[in-house]
């Protein structure tokens, strides 16, 4: 009875047939790499909380969940403070300043509000005052300065024109060191069109300081995204202004804010007509003819102000204002559903529906 036939021969043949050896090694490497890909815990951390009267959603990639949640909790607190500080109806520094503006006397600006004022002055200028936080009284008249709206009837024409005539503007604010005054007693600041953007910027900086470089802060649909989702860019879906589905998407390049102003965000209906919260400072009434404007820009405060200004500018003047403000990506949908878009933005937007909308391609920005 011969001994087991294979023993000697197998080992010699293995030495000769190195292909078998190589294949085994390759096999093992492949196996291990497949494993390492599967075994990693999904490194995306999501969190939602209330802030600025809306839902804030923060997404962080590549940071362990504990550290990510800690950062998010800090942001939640910070946003709560900012919301109170800039709320037009709270007993806060802004209220005191608004009272002092009415006196047209010089006073010391509160440090929590001053930076916002400086930023707003610049943006108001470049937007030809279409972005105008100085029309606080008008916004109050329409009932959009508070979170809950008690009245569902548009204000009278007289009241509106009385306020429009006063033409309060950010340029009415004079600066001297840390003091300031208003030359116009009807100036009242309402930062609704920029507060969220500014708050997002501050908190993106906070995340960066914590060495979190891949994140999205989304406040009620307006967001700023930094870094990437691992190896691929962040993908943002844009909701259709008239229904719940996503009708377009875009990919974030490095560090960008995506802001949309729409006539569907805050509004009331009276006798079949919709009155939304984006007041045109020139007419004193909600801007008409535009359904929504989507803007991509680096910092969120500018994107926030720009989306408001361009909404008011409408399909005839958005291009001029965008150029003035240095905005490079704009998509405006007018009341007829036509999409007005500049070439650079067109290249970035991917329309999801089978029927792409009617597109009006503008000159480059």
């Amino acid at each position, binding site marked *: 009875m011969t001994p087991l036939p294979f023993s000697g021969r197998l080992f010699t043949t293995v030495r000769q047939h190195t292909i078998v050896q190589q294949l085994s090694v390759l096999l093992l490497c492949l196996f291990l790499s497949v494993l390492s890909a599967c075994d990693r815990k999904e490194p995306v951390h999501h969190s939602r909380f*209330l802030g600025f*009267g*809306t*839902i804030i*959603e923060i*997404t962080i990639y590549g940071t362990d969940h504990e550290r990510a949640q800690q950062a998010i909790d800090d942001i939640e607190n910070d946003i709560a403070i900012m919301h109170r500080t800039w709320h037009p109806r709270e007993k806060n520094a802004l209220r005191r300043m608004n009272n002092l503006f009415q006196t047209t006397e010089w006073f010391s600006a509160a440090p929590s509000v001053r930076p916002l004022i400086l930023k707003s002055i610049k943006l108001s200028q470049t937007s030809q005052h279409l972005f105008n936080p100085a029309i606080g009284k008008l916004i109050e008249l329409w009932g959009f300065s508070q979170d*809950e*709206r*008690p009245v569902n009837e548009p204000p009278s024409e007289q009241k509106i024109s009385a306020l429009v005539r006063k033409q309060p503007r950010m340029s009415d604010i004079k600066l001297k060191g840390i003091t300031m005054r208003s030359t116009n007693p009807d100036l009242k600041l309402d930062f609704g069109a920029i507060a969220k953007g500014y708050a997002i910027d501050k908190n993106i900086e906070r995340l960066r300081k914590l060495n979190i470089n891949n994140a*999205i802060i*989304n406040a009620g*649909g*307006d*967001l700023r*995204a930094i870094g990437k*989702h691992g190896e691929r860019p*962040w*993908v*943002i*879906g*844009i*909701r259709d202004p008239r*229904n*719940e*589905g*996503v009708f377009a*998407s875009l990919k974030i390049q490095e560090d960008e804010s*995506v*802001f*949309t102003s*729409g006539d569907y965000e*805050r509004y*009331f209906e009276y006798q079949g007509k919709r009155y939304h919260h984006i007041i045109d400072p020139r007419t004193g009434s909600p801007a008409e003819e535009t359904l929504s404007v*989507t803007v991509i820009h680096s910092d969120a405060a500018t994107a926030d102000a720009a989306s408001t200004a361009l909404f008011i500018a409408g399909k005839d003047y958005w291009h001029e204002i965008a150029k003035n403000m240095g905005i490079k990506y704009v998509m405006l949908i007018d009341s007829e559903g036509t999409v007005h878009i500049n070439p650079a933005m067109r290249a970035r937007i991917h329309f999801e529906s089978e029927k792409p909308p009617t597109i009006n391609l503008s000159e480059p920005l």
Partner: protein
Amino acid sequence: MSKMGKLLTTADKVLLSCTVLLLPFLYFSAWSQDLQADSVKIWSSSQGFQTFTLNQKQKILIDGAHGKSVFEIQNGKIRFVDSKCTNKICVRAGWLSHAGAFAACLPNNVSMEITGTTGYDSINF
């Protein structure tokens, strides 16, 4: 690698090509499952999370911070019918049906979210 030719019979080659061709289909059908939306999670500060199926027609009453929020499920969709708030923004959101869709009645502390992922990292609106 001419040895590879001898290594594989005709049947082998056919089998190999078939499996390679079918593979993307397998990925697609398995991974698109994620986007399916067949249930909704309703949250309220007093009752926490509750899950309901979208496949059954039903009316749901949830206790919120100030009173009741009423939901209606029909044809795989859900909406706020009424809620204890002034602006009724939640009701205005209308019917939700897509995976990951979300709506809330902030004053009443009630929210709803359809299960599944939206397919995007974040939604701008």
